[in-house]
């Protein structure tokens, strides 16, 4: 990329470094580099890696805020660095790995815990027991026909790009290791709202189990930082309502009567 910024503007970047082979604890390293006025934070980090310090490690991919790879803390707030303009910041910019996650190296965090929480909410269409033999309902227009209105019910909550900014913003994630967290609950809720799905009973039981949705204290920070306007806070709090209804009706209707048998774990 061109390094000619025209007016010779420079910024100072304070970046967290951590190499598990040589460092006891993370430390910071400062880089002063020339910047261009239209750069995003990711451009600056890539410049540092390309031109100054190739040892710095960070995740990024699409450069257009759809892959969710480049999440980091910029001046203490979780951001997608490909979408965050440098011009919004002062002469010194602090870049740290995503909060509330274990750090593998430099700006790269361990995401396996996130993947595990995701899987727990069963983010797939679950058939009803009656459908187990013949599969999902078919019509002459195809399988799983869904109207635009039915799609609209859950579409907002399907827009999540798994960037994990919401986990960095959430005070409950920071303090309760078991909490399922905004994105996982929003995804589970997305399936609960999907007209093709019959897994509400199973998911609502998970929502009330370890990692319960009721741990959410409605700080709303997750929705504030979400780059895709998924509004996970709305999903989680709607999910609380759904879980309570499920809990209450559980006293009237026996459990587990309605769903197809579990498929085998791979």
């Amino acid at each position, binding site marked *: 990329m061109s390094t000619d910024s025209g007016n010779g503007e420079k910024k100072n970047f304070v970046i967290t470094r951590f190499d598990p082979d040589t460092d006891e604890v993370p430390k910071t390293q400062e880089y002063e580099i020339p910047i261009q006025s239209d750069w995003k934070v990711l451009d600056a980090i890539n410049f540092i890696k390309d031109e100054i310090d190739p040892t710095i490690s960070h995740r990024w991919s699409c450069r257009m805020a759809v892959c969710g790879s480049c999440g980091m803390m910029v001046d203490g707030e979780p951001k997608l660095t490909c979408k965050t303009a440098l011009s919004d910041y002062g002469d010194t910019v602090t870049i740290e790995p995503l909060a509330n996650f274990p750090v593998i190296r430099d700006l790269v965090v361990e995401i396996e815990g996130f993947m595990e929480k995701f899987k727990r909410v069963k983010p797939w269409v679950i058939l009803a027991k009656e459908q187990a033999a013949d599969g999902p309902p078919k019509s002459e227009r195809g399988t799983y026909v869904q109207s635009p209105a039915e799609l609209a019910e859950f579409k907002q909550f399907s827009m999540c790009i798994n960037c994990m900014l919401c986990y960095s913003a959430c005070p409950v994630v920071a303090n309760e290791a078991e909490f399922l967290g905004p994105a996982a609950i929003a995804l589970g809720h997305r399936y609960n709202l999907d007209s093709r799905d019959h897994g509400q009973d199973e998911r609502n039981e998970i929502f009330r189990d370890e990692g319960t949705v009721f741990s959410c204290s409605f700080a709303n920070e997750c929705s504030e930082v979400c780059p895709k306007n998924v509004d996970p806070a*709305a999903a989680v709090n709607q999910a609380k309502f759904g879980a309570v209804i499920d809990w209450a009706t559980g006293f009237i209707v026996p459990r587990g009567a309605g769903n197809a048998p579990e498929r085998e774990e791979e």
Partner: protein
Amino acid sequence: MAGPAHPNAMAPAKPGRTRTAPPQMPATWWSHPRIRTYLLFGSTGAVYLLLGLFALRVVWALGSGPEAWNAAIAELESPLYIAFHGLGLASVIFVGVRFFGFFPKAQPSRIGPAKPPPPPVILAMLYLAWIGVTILFVAILAGGLF
């Protein structure tokens, strides 16, 4: 960073192949204006708890006869009680405004075939109910009704 998060925050079930640095909370966590508002919202819990306990005290006195009742009313005249109830008033208004703002988006998208009204309508209904209940209650307690 503002300090350590829970040591197992977002930890995988089995550790990865290399040693990881422990999770940290965001740097501006305690000083961010939105977070301060949120923590203030939570701390109104103390005010509500006391308001409930003081209301219990008053109603208990009412059930104990005229002397106890008059004593309780007189006790409420202490500056400390009045100051607390001033704080209480500020707290319930703060809580109401913040909570009502969140209420519409926390509603399920449908209950059976019924859909909730659009958010501005829900908000208007909430505030009307709040104001209406307050006026009615004030009118009754202040002697204007019944």
